[in-house]
């Protein structure tokens, strides 16, 4: 009688720090509670948003009775892959025209990073990846489980609440030749601090001179500045120099497809032959993980991207989301200025994308949660998408009180 479980030694894992914030928020009964934890867009009314163009696309798919639910190929929906590559690299990209790019559908950004990481750990010669400090909390776990050794490079400067450019160049300059470098294509998560165009060019030169391998995480294309092309410039700059790179794309935020898990991994190679061989090896990573990717979300994306009108409609809705966030930044900055909250808060409007790294410490954060029912990650990161004109004053009050109390 096997009364002893073979898993009797399993201890309960700690809550995921980011998703755990929402868990705590849900438990709170205060009417003033504010969830600035997870990075999912909210409207002015604080509601999740499904884009109109997405609803339309979904309706089209449901009404098309000729559609079936067969397995996708291992690499996913071909049309989706082509359109995704064009979206990030540009429709006229020589790399695409020369067939040097392999693109495979994956489970959102996370899945793309994991599949890319696993491929690297099997086929690349330098198994160290440098990730920025700080970065999205899941990055180290993804790459470690993929079989890579994770190191960090300096990125955020708490003193300026901006980029530690000198530190970044030093650390990447000291990296072993061939090392992999994770780069946030735009709207760095969690800091919202991005390099300037000039800085990107210097980073590119350094990376190429040391033969480091860039791996882009593009989770916010279009969502950061409101322009799909502008938000892709860092990636396109690297591809334009003819070198190789990996790119993980996510449609979670910019198309609001969060739970559908839609994303793509592109590997830009030197030749078409290499790209083809690389693709065949990517299949061997994917097949024992989940066989083939889910069809629904990718079908919605393909439907939208390939139709000129729907594509335009999407860019308009996307810009509206980006603009609302930029407005929230301005309002929060103005509210803190109006209250005379000590300190320089200009980083709120200088940073970009969904998140602001407020610079608040964990004591201040804990205070804000306890006394003001503000939920955010303990590193001081707030999701601007969770704010509205109505709730900005409450947040400003909380920050003001926290700084006064624990300044």
């Amino acid at each position, binding site marked *: 009688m096997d*009364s002893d479980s073979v898993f009797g030694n399993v201890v309960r894992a700690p809550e995921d720090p980011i998703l755990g914030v929402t868990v705590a928020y849900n438990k709170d009964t205060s009417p003033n509670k504010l969830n600035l934890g997870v990075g999912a867009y909210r409207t002015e009314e604080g509601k999740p948003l499904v884009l109109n163009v997405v609803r339309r696309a979904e309706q089209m798919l449901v009404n098309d009775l000729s559609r079936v639910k067969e397995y996708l190929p291992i690499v996913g929906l071909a049309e989706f892959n082509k359109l995704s590559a064009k979206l990030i690299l540009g429709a006229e990209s020589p790399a695409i025209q020369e067939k040097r790019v392999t693109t495979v559908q994956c489970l959102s950004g996370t899945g793309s990073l994991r599949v890319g990481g696993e491929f690297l750990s099997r086929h690349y010669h330098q198994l160290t990846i440098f990730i920025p400090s700080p970065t999205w909390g899941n990055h180290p776990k993804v790459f470690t489980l993929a079989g890579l050794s994770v190191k960090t490079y300096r990125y955020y400067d708490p003193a300026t609440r901006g980029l530690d450019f000198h530190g970044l160049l030093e650390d990447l300059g000291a990296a072993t030749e061939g090392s992999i470098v994770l780069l946030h294509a735009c709207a760095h998560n969690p800091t919202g601090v991005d390099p*300037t165009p000039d800085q990107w060019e210097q980073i590119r*030169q350094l990376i190429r001179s040391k033969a480091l391998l860039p791996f882009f995480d593009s989770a916010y294309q279009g969502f*950061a500045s409101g322009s799909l092309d502008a938000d892709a410039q860092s990636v396109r700059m690297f591809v334009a120099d003819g070198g190789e790179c990996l790119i993980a794309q996510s449609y979670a935020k910019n198309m609001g497809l969060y*739970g559908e*898990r839609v994303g793509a991994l592109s590997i830009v190679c030197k030749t078409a032959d290499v790209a083809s*061989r690389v693709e065949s090896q990517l299949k061997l990573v994917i097949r024992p993980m989940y066989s083939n990717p889910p069809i629904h979300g990718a079908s919605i994306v393909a439907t939208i991207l390939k139709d000129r009108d729907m594509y335009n409609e999407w860019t308009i809705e996307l810009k509206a989301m980006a603009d609302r966030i930029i407005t929230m930044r301005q309002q929060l900055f103005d509210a803190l200025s109006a209250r005379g909250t000590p300190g320089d808060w200009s980083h709120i409007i200088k940073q970009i994308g969904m998140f602001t790294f407020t610079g608040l410490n964990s004591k201040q954060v804990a205070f804000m949660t306890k006394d003001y029912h503000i939920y955010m990650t303990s590193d001081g990161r707030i999701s601007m998408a969770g704010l509205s004109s109505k709730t900005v004053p409450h947040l400003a009050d909380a920050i003001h009180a926290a700084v006064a109390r624990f300044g």
Partner: protein
Amino acid sequence: MAFTTAMACRLIGRKSVIGARSMSSWWRNVEPAPKDPILGVTEAFLADPSPDKVNVGVGAYRDDNGKPVVLECVREAERRIAGKLNMEYLPMGGSVKMVEETLKLAYGENSEFIKDKRIAAVQSLSGTGACRLFADFQKRFSPDSQIYIPVPTWANHHNIWRDAQVPQRTYHYYHPESRGLNFAALMDDIKNAPNGSFILLHACAHNPTGVDPSEEEWREISHLFKFQVKNHFAFFDMAYQGFASGDPERDAKSIRIFLEDGHHIGIAQSYAKNMGLYGQRVGCLSVLCENEKQAVAVKSQLQQLARPMYSNPPVHGALIVSTILGDPDLKKLWLKEVKVMADRIISMRASLRENLEKLGSPLSWKHITKQIGMFCYSGMTPEQVDRLTKEYHIYMTRNGRISMAGITTGNVGYLANAIHEVTKSA
């Protein structure tokens, strides 16, 4: 801050010598990977222009016109879902509602284990994802254990446990001479496996052979686990519940036997075939634990493995499942539609066997109707299979596996004749 387009153009226009420095690729040493043997069959079929061609390679259901099927209950569920709900992230463990309904199917509608909250369960990426999560979990928490895999099995099982870095061994299963189960050897292998081995079992409709243990044999296997070996872990891959006999309760018999005998098992469930949700990737991984506290711990660790793989599972397919199983009328409709699929396959088995016997085949084809589920292990050799393809444009995997779903009243005669021709002098 963001680029301005003008500045960006200026920078990109300048082609840097540094970028073009290394002309050779990082990937020049990457070998082309071998083609997937199963999916390669369909590719070859699609490329064949012959009007007589038959595809009995694919493991997806086809109706009597050879067309893929979307179940009515699924269409209705999708109509209800579309445009109604948001697409927020599911929790890491997936849709709670979907998982609840799915556990009822495997463990029983009124299962005490569900009531006592003893099952750690998470939504998974169909059956593959469930097996992979479990393999990763096994590696992390039973690092010294091995997995025993039947011979033969679905080829991807080997890939899954290999990528999870769990050492694998095999146990006897298929008996070529009888085209049935090699029960004695199976029992021996399990008995001789080191204590604490993990044993992969196909709950019903074994893939690729269609050969299942009888109820009595299942009882003996369970008995063996209970009294004669120490602490083996039984992991069930159940990809065809309802699809095998037409009755989901009956198809779960093997699992229920093990549960009655008190084993703490693991189960991978898939809705790919029985709900026709193939491309949606919907499934569930569950692990029965000693108590609620342990179930909570195990579930939290499964989530820790899912988070760095895909963060949280896709919502659409899960919504379809929970919409159907949560509505008594839709659930009834589903059960009816599953039975239709299973019955069609069972009738094709009977028809194929009948046709072969009528043709006066010298061989025995009893196994066609004895085997169960989507696949039939015909017993044909690779050379005979090659002849079927070359001379008759019939496509199947070279191990002689026939996908019954590809057989229709329209092509069963042609297929029987072809098989007869290549085997009559065997």
